[in-house]
C-alpha cells in the first residue's frame, strides 16, 4: 500500500476537499486560459493577473479527479504573487518531477535529480510519478499555466 499512500497524501486530499484560490477574476485586465483532458473529462480554467513582470493574482475554476484538482490548488498557492521568471522556474522543476524516470528514484522514494526543497508543498505530488496514467492529471493545470503565460508574453 506504500505507493498508494504516496499518491494520496493527506495534503493532496486536503487541497482536493478545500481547493485554494477558487474563483474568477475580471477579464481584462486578467487573462483567462482553459485546459482540458479529453480522456477523463478533467477541465480547468485559470484567471491570471500579470502586472509589472509578476503573477499578481491567480484564480481557478474547473472539475476533475483529486490529483488534477489538488495539483491545480497547490500550483496556485506556489506561484501566486511571484515574479514570472520564478513561476516559469517552478513550472520547469515540477515538470522535471513528473518526468523523473522510476529508475532515478532512490530507495527512500525520493527523486535523485529534482530539488524537492524548491518545490515546498508541491513535493507531495511526487508519488504521482509511480502511477503513469495519473501524470497527465497532475500536469493539466501546469500545462495550462504555461499556455497562459505564453499568451501574456505574446
Amino acid at each position, binding site marked *: 500500500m506504500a505507493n498508494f499512500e504516496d499518491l494520496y497524501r493527506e495534503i493532496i486530499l486536503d487541497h482536493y476537499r478545500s481547493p485554494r484560490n477558487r474563483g474568477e477574476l475580471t477579464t481584462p485586465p486578467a487573462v483567462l486560459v482553459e485546459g482540458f483532458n479529453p480522456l*477523463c473529462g478533467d477541465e480547468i480554467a485559470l484567471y491570471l493577473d500579470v502586472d509589472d513582470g509578476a503573477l499578481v493574482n491567480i484564480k481557478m475554476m474547473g472539475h476533475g*479527479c483529486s490529483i488534477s484538482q489538488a495539483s491545480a490548488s497547490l500550483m496556485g498557492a506556489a506561484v501566486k504573487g511571484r515574479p514570472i521568471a520564478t513561476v516559469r522556474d517552478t513550472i520547469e522543476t515540477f515538470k522535471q518531477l513528473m518526468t523523473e524516470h522510476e529508475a532515478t528514484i532512490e530507495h527512500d522514494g525520493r527523486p535523485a535529480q529534482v530539488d524537492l526543497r524548491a518545490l515546498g508543498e508541491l513535493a507531495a505530488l511526487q508519488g504521482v510519478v509511480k502511477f503513469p496514467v495519473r501524470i497527465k492529471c497532475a500536469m493539466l493545470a501546469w500545462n495550462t499555466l504555461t499556455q497562459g503565460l505564453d499568451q501574456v508574453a505574446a
Partner: protein
Amino acid sequence: MSAFNARAVRADVPQLQRVINGHPLTYLDTAASSLQPRAVIEAMSRYYELRHANVHRAVYQTAEEATAAYEGARDAVARFIHAPGGSGEVVFTKNATESFNLLAKSWGSAHLGSTDVVLVTEMEHHANIVPWFQLREQTGVEVRFIPVTDDYRLDLTNLDELMVGVKLVSVTGMSNVLGTINPVRELARVAHAHGALIAVDGAQSVAHSPTDVEELDVDFMLFTGHKMLGPTGIGVFWTHEAILAAMPPFLGGGGMIADVRTDGYVAADGPTRFEAGTPPIAEAVGLHAAIRYLEGLGVANIVDHEHGLTGDALTRLALEFEGRVRVIGPKDTEDRGGVISLDVEGVHPHDVAQVLDQFGVCVRPGHHCAKPLMRRFGLAATVRASYGPYSLARDTDVLIEALGHALKMFG
C-alpha cells in the same frame, strides 16, 4: 439441469489465479475485454507449436492444416450465430471497430448518398458513430440518432418519423455503458417495413445473450473475439451472402484478389474479398476454441448466471449506499446485461478506480467510447463494473467493500 458452474469456469482462467496488491484478482472489466480460459490459450499455443504456416497458399501438409484450422473457425462462427448461408457469410476482421469500418466504407459508400440516412442511437460506441461521420464527409449521408430516455432505454415513440429516408439502422445489441439490451427483433421489423436494412453491434451481446441472426432477422452482425473469451486481433463481420456479393472490396492487397495485371485487378469472391493480407490465423484458432468453450457452458446458462449476479448487485448497491452510488442504467434486470455503470457521489471515477485497484478490483473509469451518451446524462465519466461467466457474488462483495473505502476517503 445444466452443469454450469462459475467456480469451474474461474478455475479454467489462469489470470484469475493472480494476486494483486495482496488480494485475489477481482476482474470486473469483461465489457472491455474478457479473460481467456486455458483452452483458448492452449489452442493458440498448439497451433504455433505444430501447425503454423500461411493459409490459402502452399500445398505442404502444415499449410493445409493451417488453412483447415482457419476455415474451421469460420464454420464455428457461422454455427454460433446461426448464419443461414454458413461460413461463406463470415468475414474475419481485426475487431468490431474494423467490422464497422468495413460496413461503412464498403457497403455504406456504395449505398448511402446525400439523400439517405443512417439511423444510429445515442447509446452507441464510437465504433458505430465515427465511421458514419467519416462516410458523411465523403457522400453527404445524414447520420441521425434515436434518443435515449431518462430510464436508459431507446426512445422509440417517434420511430416512424425517425425512419423517414433511412436506408440503414445501426444499433447496439447491448449498451457497453448502460447494460441496456435493445429490442433488436422489433427494430429489424420496423427497418424492413421501411425498406431499410439493420446492422447490430454484437460486441457486448454475443457472449452474454443468445445470438441467432436468422431469428433476430438482422442483415449485419458485427462483433469482436476478445469480448467473448477469445483473443484480441480478430473480429467478425457477418451479412447475408447476397449482400456480401454486392459489396465493393475494402482493403486491397494479397489474398483478396482473383487476378492482378499491370492494368488492374479482379477481386476475389466471398469473404476472402475482404481479407487482404495474411489473416489472423492463430487468433481464428483461439476464437474457435472460445466458441467451443462457450457452447460447452451454454450461452443461455451464462445469461442466467450473469442475470442473477446483476440483480443481486443492483439490489445491494442500492441498499448499501442509499443513493451515494448511483447506477447509470436500468435499475432492474429486465432486458439488461451484466454491465453496471456507477456515479459515486463526490469521487471522480479515476479516484474510485485507483482505490478499487488497491483491493485487486479491475473496473473501468472513463467515457467508455460513448461520449454522446455521457453528454446525454451530463457526465464526464463513470466507473463501470461488468460481469462474465467466471464472475461470482464474491466479486460484488469486494466491489462494495472497496466502494465504501473510496467514499470514506474522499467524502
